[in-house]
């Protein structure tokens, strides 16, 4: 009997993703035998680094996990520690934190939309090549990104790895004048971001609807950023404290990043902008909600390629909300709530640009960290990405290997994976047998 032909497709280094990873695919005959999204960045051991340190160090260390979404890492750790310490912050501090998330969503989403993801819809090899073809649109994107960075600088002290945030609040609250100085730019940005969303919604999307379980936060009144219950499109509705009863990180041989799965079934799940909008359409601002209706997508949407539209709508949401917060802003009388260290445990889940993020910490009576757990969005999406590729690949096998590699990378990029964050770029290795 003739042995089936073997084909191995390898993407040695994924491009236009944050971090470094590879894709190895083995095909036996017309069957996809193995799909491994291999994250080979060395583990960074952030949790171990935190144990034994005073809790005040945690926000500065967790911010270093990512240069694109430090706010989410920093604030999730802060919220968890505040729970451990029994700290209740004022509504004014809470609003400033929400504004910080708006800033990060703007700069992170706009970067991914314009320089990493849009090139895929024009078969453009890079954001730089796209800039030659669409200079006005890319210039507009850079201007929008700048707004996010400026807002981060005012609130966080600097645009990357903010230093002004701390357990209990902020070291220094911005002045009303500082924030109002951004209003003209943000108002322009709101209109421009609506144009971006309309533009990307008109792209041609591959037909790839899948039966995902999408997981996101849901808040009684707000679009989810920094608080809420954890809900899913499969009916899950739990408190953040129950997260570890329903989700588990598992080690896999081919990756330095852990894979999070739903338990007990061990199945993958999907986090990110699409998961958020699917379950929070009614929580969008009137402008963003109207836009979501106008762009012609039927919600809930289960096509990952349309994540770019969800991401663009969230940019509108972030601008809209940032403007409202700034207009109503009065500097808080107390920028930081004082606390006494104590033994305790706390956990928090917030929404990073790339999806749900979960942190849990324990402190001793001196306020030193005795336990730390950090579950980033990309480690939650990795299993789902591999599952997606197994679904996608059978239809791609008629193509040559380089073409398959490009199509796989395009699907991976829809998730806006941040590989460095999850370890704690893609290389496709496809073997056909």
């Amino acid at each position, binding site marked *: 009997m003739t042995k089936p032909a073997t084909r191995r497709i390898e993407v040695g280094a994924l491009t236009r*993703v*944050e*971090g*470094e990873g590879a894709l190895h695919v083995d095909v036996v005959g017309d069957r996809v035998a193995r799909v491994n999204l291999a994250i080979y960045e060395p583990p960074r051991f952030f949790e171990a680094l935190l144990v034994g340190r005073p809790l005040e160090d945690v926000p500065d260390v967790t911010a270093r996990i*990512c*240069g*694109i979404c430090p706010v989410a890492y920093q604030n999730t750790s802060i919220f968890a520690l505040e729970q451990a310490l029994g700290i209740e912050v004022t509504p004014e501090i809470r609003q400033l934190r929400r504004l910080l998330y708006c800033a990060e969503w703007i700069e992170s989403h706009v970067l991914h939309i314009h*320089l990493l993801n849009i090139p895929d819809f024009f078969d453009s090899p890079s*954001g*730089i*090549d796209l*800039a*030659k073809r669409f*200079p006005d649109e*890319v*210039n507009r994107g*850079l201007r929008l990104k*700048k707004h996010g960075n400026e807002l981060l600088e005012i609130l966080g002290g*600097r645009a*990357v790895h903010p230093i002004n945030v701390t357990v209990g609040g902020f070291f220094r609250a911005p002045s009303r004048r500082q924030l109002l100085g951004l209003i003209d730019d943000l108002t322009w940005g709101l209109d421009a971001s609506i144009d971006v969303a309309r533009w990307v919604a008109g792209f041609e999307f591959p037909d790839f609807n899948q039966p995902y379980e999408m997981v996101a936060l849901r808040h009684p009144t707000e679009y989810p950023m920094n608080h809420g219950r954890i809900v899913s499109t499969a009916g899950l509705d739990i408190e953040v404290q129950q997260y570890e009863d329903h989700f588990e990180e598992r080690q896999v041989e081919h990756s330095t990043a852990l894979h999070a799965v739903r338990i007990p079934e061990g199945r993958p799940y999907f986090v990110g902008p699409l998961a958020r909008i699917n379950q929070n359409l009614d929580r969008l601002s009137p402008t963003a909600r109207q836009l979501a209706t106008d762009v012609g997508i039927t919600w809930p949407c289960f096509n990952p390629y349309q994540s770019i539209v969800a991401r663009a709508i969230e940019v509108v949401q972030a601008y809209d909300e940032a403007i409202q917060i700034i207009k109503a802003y009065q500097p808080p009388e107390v920028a930081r709530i004082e606390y006494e260290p104590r033994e305790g445990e706390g956990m928090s889940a917030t929404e990073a640009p790339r999806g749900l993020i979960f942190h849990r910490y324990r402190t001793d009576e001196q306020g030193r960290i005795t336990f730390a757990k950090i579950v980033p969005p990309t480690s939650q999406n990795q299993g789902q990405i591999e599952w997606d590729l197994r679904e996608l690949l059978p239809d791609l096998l008629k193509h040559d290997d380089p073409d398959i590699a490009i199509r796989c990378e395009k699907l991976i990029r829809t998730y806006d994976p941040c590989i*460095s964050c999850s370890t704690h*770029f893609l290389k496709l290795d496809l073997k056909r047998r």
Partner: protein
Amino acid sequence: MNAPETLVAGIGSPLGDDRAGWLVIDHLADIPQLTARLRKASSPHQLIDWMTDARTLHIVDACVDIETITRIEIANPQSSNQIDSSLAEIDQLSQCHSTHHLDLRSVIELAHSLGKLPQRVVLWAVPGLYFAADQPLSERCERAIGRCAESLLEEIQ
């Protein structure tokens, strides 16, 4: 008010010799009546916002694997041939490309694609040895910073 003709941007960080770009700016800031605009950047992407206002852009950055100050001039950035050969020179200086932000080469290429590059761009690469936290300036880098500031001053005054 007319935009200054010349912008000098030093790229750096507080880590060892990586502060070379910032220290060259500090040297120039001490020169009275200097008409050039001076900026310190912590990431190359910041240059895109600043460069549109300048006719000449000098970029100062620390670089590993070079022995002496290396000067690369992009005299006519609107020309594709010129930009390609200049980018190739920059590639020879550094193979280090970041995935988390735009590196200097990508920023120059992107600015060129967007038609934002000033008429003249000069890159000054200062030799560095140590780039880790808590490391002091190396003697070689310290000497090169002074020489780079002097050479730059001769060009811009």
